[in-house]
Each structure stands twice: as structure tokens, then as C-alpha cells.
């Protein structure tokens, strides 16, 4: 039931907004309706769950508006009857995606608002996932709602900003009792089913292909297992198969974008039964596309590592010399290429430097172990 409620959340909020309820009030009313549903439905399941939620949320919104009006002692009359909405062709769920990822929002606000108003998560769940107090998250969400209060709801938004928000949710890891990676996949699926855009399909494929490796990516103690050392029998073949199908259909449309290129790289890794069978020349080709599409120095760094695998360490180091040394993980990549080139002393020193620079503990431990191993300490 929770899954159904969360799936219906954005559409119900969208209906209220389309009927002229202010977004913040609509969102609050829908949260109340969800609570009511959670207590009522187990005993009396409705025939039309969405209709039930719309009715209850609409009533709450009208009540809230009335009490607000009387509180201000205004004499306006409130229309209790829903005004006729636009034609049924309007996709309320899609409209909510656009609204919650509106470009006027900061990334953290857009993420929080999307998880609540589209994902149907509670403020408490979102706060626990991002390790901030519930009061802080509540404020972040209500500020976000105020920011987009005056955004018109009848124009199509920008799918690229929605994709960036969903990618952030997926890529930031997960804590607390909500699996944010799974949630990001669910929402991206939803978005992909409602839009005809190969890049959204590319993002979905990228998520599926990386999610497929999740079980193999960490040891029970939380330490990282790098890709070449992962037990590939633990990769989720069903997710990989789905990701590849989604990706191939997207690529066939011949409108390449960064997420499709990234997914193609992930698919080539997934293709290799053993690390040695990886098709590195093709991966380099996709990194060329990625660098061309994004100009991203991170892509250029990853490309240098791939060149090192495809054409040898010297070629990799030559490619690395073209990359800005200020890019995160530059030192780690340099250490890896020097190790591959047989320069153990330099590699050991660089691994130790990279460990100090690591942006998280798991990477720091991984790099420190590499430094220790290459330095002959086990």
C-alpha cells in the first residue's frame, strides 16, 4: 500500500495545484490525505485510490483555506467546488517533476522537494537519509515550496534539470531507512515512462547498470571493492539485461547525451565476464564522446585511466598530463597509472597522498591499503 500511495502522491498534488490550490497548501493537504489513507484503507480499501486521495486532499485544502481566510477575517467567498481543470491530457505527475526540480531551486532544495512531493517520502525519512535534523529539513522543504509558489504549472519544464536532481539522489549514496538509490530508480522509471527522451532513458540505464553491481561493490565491513576485483557472479544479471535493453533503445534514437555515454561505458564493463575481457578501446571511444559532450575534466581524468588500460601505462600517463591536476581523484589516478608503469616508489607515494586527499573514509582506507601493499607492507 505504501508503494501505491507514494506512486499516487505527485499526481494527486498535481490535480490540486491545477485546480488553483497554492503548491505549499496542496502538498500539505496531500500529506494529510496520505496519513488518512494509511489508517483507513487497511479496513476499507477504496475502489478508486487516486479519486479517494484527490477528494480527501481537496477537502483538506479547502478547509485549510477557509480557516486561513476566517483567521484573517477576510470576507472572500471560497469556491468549494473544483473549477474545471484543463483537458485530461495534462500529466500531473510530470508537472510535479518539473516543479520540484525548477531551476530557481538550489540542488539540495530540489532534491528534498522532489523526494517529498514526487517521491511521497516523509520529511523525517528525508532528514534521516541526509543526516540533518527533521526541523532543518522541514524548513528546507517549506522554503523550496515558497520559492516555486508562483511558478506557472501549465508549461512544460526542463527534463534536464529533473535528470540532474534524480542523478544526485542516486549518486549520493544512502543512509537511514530509505534506499535512495532504489528511490531514484523508481522516480527515473516514472519520468522515463512519461517523457520521450533518450537521455532520460540513458539515465535510467546508467542507474540500473550501476545498481546491478551494488552487492559486489562493498565488503561486509563497508570497505570498497574496486571494479577489477569485484566478484562478477554477484552482479544482478536481470538489472544488467534491463539496463542494456533500455540503453540500446535510447542509442538507436541517435540523439546522444552524457547519460547515454556514461551508461554505454557501464554496459561495456557489465559485458565482461572477467575484468581482463573488458573492451577498453571501445570504452575509450565512449569517453571521447563524453569529453566532447561535457568538456568535463572528471571525464577527461577517467578517460586517461581507460587509455592506460587500452594502450598501456605510458599512453595513459600522456593522456593524464593533459588533465587539470586540481580535478578530484587526479592523484589516485596518477598513482594507479604509475603502478601500472612499474614505478612502485612513485605509486606508493602518490597513493599515500591520494589517501590524505580522499573525500570519504571508504576511499581513504582503500588508497591507504594500496599504498601499504605496494610499499611492501602486506
Amino acid at each position, binding site marked *: 500500500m505504501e508503494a501505491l500511495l507514494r506512486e499516487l502522491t505527485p499526481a494527486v498534488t498535481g490535480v490540486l495545484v491545477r485546480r488553483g490550490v497554492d503548491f505549499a497548501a496542496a502538498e500539505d493537504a496531500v500529506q494529510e490525505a496520505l496519513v488518512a489513507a494509511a489508517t483507513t484503507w487497511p479496513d476499507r480499501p477504496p475502489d478508486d485510490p487516486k479519486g479517494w486521495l484527490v477528494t480527501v486532499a481537496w477537502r483538506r485544502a479547502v478547509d485549510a483555506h477557509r480557516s486561513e481566510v476566517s483567521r484573517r477575517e477576510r470576507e472572500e467567498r471560497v469556491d468549494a467546488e473544483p473549477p474545471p481543470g484543463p483537458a485530461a491530457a495534462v500529466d500531473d505527475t510530470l508537472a510535479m517533476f518539473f516543479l520540484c526540480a525548477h531551476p530557481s531551486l538550489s540542488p*539540495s532544495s530540489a532534491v528534498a522537494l522532489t523526494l517529498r512531493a514526487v517521491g511521497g517520502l516523509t520529511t523525517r525519512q528525508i532528514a534521516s537519509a541526509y543526516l540533518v535534523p527533521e526541523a*532543518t529539513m522541514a524548513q*528546507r522543504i517549506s522554503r523550496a515550496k515558497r520559492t516555486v509558489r508562483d511558478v506557472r504549472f501549465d508549461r512544460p519544464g526542463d527534463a534536464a534539470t529533473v535528470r540532474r536532481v534524480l542523478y544526485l539522489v542516486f*549518486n*549520493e549514496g544512502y543512509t537511514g531507512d530509505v534506499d535512495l538509490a532504489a528511490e531514484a530508480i523508481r522516480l527515473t522509471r516514472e519520468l522515463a515512462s512519461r517523457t520521450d527522451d533518450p537521455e532520460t532513458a540513458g539515465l535510467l540505464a546508467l542507474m540500473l547498470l*550501476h545498481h546491478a553491481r551494488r552487492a559486489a561493490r562493498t565488503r561486509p565491513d563497508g570497505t570498497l571493492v574496486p571494479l577489477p576485483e569485484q566478484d562478477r557472479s554477484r552482479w544482478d544479471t536481470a538489472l544488467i539485461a534491463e539496463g542494456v535493453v533500455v540503453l540500446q533503445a535510447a542509442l538507436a534514437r541517435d540523439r546522444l547525451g552524457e547519460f547515454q555515454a556514461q551508461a554505454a561505458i557501464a554496459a561495456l564493463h557489465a559485458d565482461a565476464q572477467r575484468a581482463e575481457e573488458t573492451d577498453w578501446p571501445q570504452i575509450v571511444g565512449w569517453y571521447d564522446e563524453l569529453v566532447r559532450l561535457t568538456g568535463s575534466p572528471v571525464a577527461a581524468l577517467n578517460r586517461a585511466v581507460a587509455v592506460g588500460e587500452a594502450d598501456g601505462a605510458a599512453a595513459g600517463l600522456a593522456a593524464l598530463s593533459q588533465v587539470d591536476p586540481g580535478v578530484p581523484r587526479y592523484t589516485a589516478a596518477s598513482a594507479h597509472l604509475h603502478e601500472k608503469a612499474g614505478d612502485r616508489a612513485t605509486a606508493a607515494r602518490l597513493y599515500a597522498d591520494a589517501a590524505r586527499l580522499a573525500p570519504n*573514509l571508504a*576511499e*581513504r582506507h582503500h588508497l591507504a591499503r594500496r599504498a601499504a601493499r605496494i610499499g611492501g607492507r602486506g
Partner: protein
Amino acid sequence: MAKYLLLKHYRGAPEAVNDVPMERWTPQEIQDHVRYMSDFATRLEGTGEYVDGQALSPEGTFVRYDGEGRPPVTDGPFAETKDLIAGWMVIDVDTYERALELAGELSAAPGAGGKPIHEWLELRPFLGTPPTVTE
């Protein structure tokens, strides 16, 4: 979305511009300072950027393991310790620039004469979680 620790030092940081210790402030100056700090935290909660903040007692004890079956050894407090942490605030912000901006505002808390202390705060990023997409 990144968390930062703002560290306030009793000792160990470079000298503040308005470097008059609190015990020589007037009661009103102290009250104004406390109000500023509390308003700052309230405002950050309002912007959805506040995580935690605490003040610490200046006196602490050093503790270490002393071997199997033995109670931990304690030592201190050391009056001459070079560095001493007075308190901290944890913020969760979108960018490093925003963290700098907020630290600057906190450092402007009023001290003696009602003038900003201009004290040095230490800004330390938290280590995050590893990203999912790495290649």
C-alpha cells in the same frame, strides 16, 4: 550538499582583530553576543542549513587504554595546551562558497564595544559517502 564543521577555538587560532576576552566585556555586550549567536543558528535552521551546534567546557581530560584488565589512564587537564576548542557548529550547505560566507558571518559576532570580534573560525569539510557512479 556538503556538511562542514565550524570550529571556534579558545586558544590555538590566530589572534582576532577585536581580541578582548569575554570576562572584560560589559553585561550588555555579552548579551548582544549571545543574541547574535542564537539568531544566527535560528536563521540557519530557517534556511534549512543547520545541523548541530554545541559549546564545550574549557576543561577536559585525556584518556587512553592502558592494557588488558586495567582501567584507562587519565591525564590533564593541561593548562598550557596550545589548542583548545570552545565549541562547534555543523552546517549542511550547497557549496563551499556558502560555507565560507556563513563562517564569515559567524566571525562577525559582536564582542567588546559592540564591534565584531573578527575571530578566526576553522572550517573543516566532513568526509562524505563514496559516490555510486565512479567510472
